[in-house]
């Protein structure tokens, strides 16, 4: 009986995932009976509840999503990998034992709190620093998402670095390499697939994050020109519009199509991360 129950629990995950995908696909596809594929993917104008003609182009939202998440990775990768290397290789045990739980706590801060921090603290700071009128823009979102994906990057990278066999280090040291040289030329390359996987997971987290970017990026609909422009990401758009959309209209279906697109993007990133992690599993030792 226990076996059966646990089997059901395990299978329920697959059922839920399949169900969500089927629903997104079913509703999302309805959108394309009214919207041409070229408009959906290539137009930069999104305004389904327009005063004039409704438009359904997601290009500027996709670009905005990538802007914010790639920006986040540019900030998070050096800090995350650096922190992981420090914790795993350099820090004294006492420091390590303090840092690790702190990073866990960082991961548990609710996204709405991070978004609030972006509005009241980081936004004005960015505006002052760069002489802008408003700090609700892409770079604000990037900083916050970097902060939110750091725990993932640090803990997965740290595991990867930690699992590099001690012999590698010993061999490098025996050949007269310095500690720094060993870290950069031996340990980090040996752990590279785990580190890349951690970056992918962090990137997936950044693409899918909603509340923080909704609060901190200003949500303007135009195509962003640079990091100081206000942007509206795909997730924020769904969150803004799904609450009020009339059921079973083109607008309703088009939001599912955006969701489907987002799901495929994060799934690709996660699958890539998964493949890379399996890769290290096989090549260890």
């Amino acid at each position, binding site marked *: *009986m*226990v076996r059966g*129950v646990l089997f059901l629990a395990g299978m329920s995950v697959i059922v839920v995932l399949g169900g969500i995908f089927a629903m997104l696909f079913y509703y999302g596809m309805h959108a394309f009976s009214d919207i041409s594929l070229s408009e959906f993917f290539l137009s930069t*104008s999104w*305004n389904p*509840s*327009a*005063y*004039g003609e409704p438009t359904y182009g997601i290009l500027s939202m996709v670009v905005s999503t990538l802007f914010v998440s790639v920006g986040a990775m540019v900030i998070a990768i050096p800090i995350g990998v650096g922190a992981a290397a420090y914790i795993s290789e350099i820090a004294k045990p006492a420091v390590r034992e303090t840092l690790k739980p702190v990073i866990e706590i960082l991961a548990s801060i609710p996204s709405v709190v991070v978004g609030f921090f972006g*509005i*009241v603290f980081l*936004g*004005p700071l960015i*505006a002052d620093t760069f002489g802008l*009128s*408003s700090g*609700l823009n892409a770079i604000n979102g990037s900083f916050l998402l970097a902060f939110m994906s750091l725990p993932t990057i640090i803990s997965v990278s740290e595991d990867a670095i930690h699992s590099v066999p001690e012999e590698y280090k010993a061999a490098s040291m025996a050949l007269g390499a310095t500690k720094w040289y060993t870290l950069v030329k031996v340990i980090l390359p040996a752990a590279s697939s785990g580190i890349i996987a951690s970056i992918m997971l962090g990137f997936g987290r950044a693409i899918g994050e909603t509340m923080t970017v*909704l*609060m901190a990026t*200003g*949500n*303007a*609909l*135009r195509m962003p020109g640079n990091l100081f422009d*206000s942007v*509206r990401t795909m997730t924020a758009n769904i969150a*803004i*519009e799904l*609450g*009020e*959309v*009339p*059921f079973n*209209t083109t607008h309703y279906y088009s939001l599912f199509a955006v969701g489907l697109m987002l799901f495929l993007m994060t799934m690709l990133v996660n699958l890539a991360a998964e493949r890379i992690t399996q890769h290290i599993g096989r090549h260890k030792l």
Partner: protein
Amino acid sequence: MNFAKIKIVGAIAISALLVTACGGSQKRQNAIQISGSDSEVNMVQNLAEAYMKKSPEQSIAVTGGGSGTGIAALINQQTDIANSSRMMNKTEYQQARDQGVEPVAIPFAIDGLAVIINHELPITELTIDQISQIYKGSITNWSELGGPDLPITVYGRQSNSGTYVYFRDNVVKADYTNNMRNMNGTAQIVEAVRSDNSAIGYVGIGYIVDKEGKVADRLSVLNVAADADSPAYSPLNKENVASGLYPISRALYQFTNGMPEGRMLDFIRFELSPEGQQVVVNAGYYPLGQSYMDELKEMGIIE
């Protein structure tokens, strides 16, 4: 092993209990459910509390979510009263009829929409047309309006807001510029305009004026003129809004399914009574004028 088994069976039993408990509470329907407009939620909450103090046997639950959300809930028969700061549109009426719902619109308060700018800007009044051009994106710099040479940062609500729709349809009369920052709620617009020295935004007047009529700091409330030939009026003077001289005011509505009866009618009559209208005024809004009251009399809502 046995212990593990007991634990799992216990967990299932507890979840089963929880499920039945939730089902039970859903069937209990003695509270009047009200949901919708974020502009109205605080005021209606105050009205509900004042009413429940008078009639302690009654219970009213008020939630926000935006006018569109409230109307959708009325159409799906998940709420008794939908708060909305705009009229229902054709599509929504059609959907309601398809579901067998007959929406009745009951105005119960007047809201003046204030156009606010950062206090550092030396501008005191604009015409409706100038405001429209700013929000359409055809005026983009304060120097075009006699202000400093600063690009205008335009703030507005998100599309699930009745205020967003009302302002677009009655003031801008065109699509918003896609440079407009879409803020998640009135409080965020206020916060942004206070901290951004080139900002313009629009909010319900009740949000920025306290009980003594004092405006929140670091903001200026613009006087607005209907056109270039008319004088500009301030929404801070209640007379201007109640008499319609201030050009951006709107009725706030509650929608019911069919003519309200019984305790729902009783509550709505309380809102429209002098006592209820005083609660409206205390919340920073304006009481209904005589023409609305006559209309409600004709509908048979009040005597």
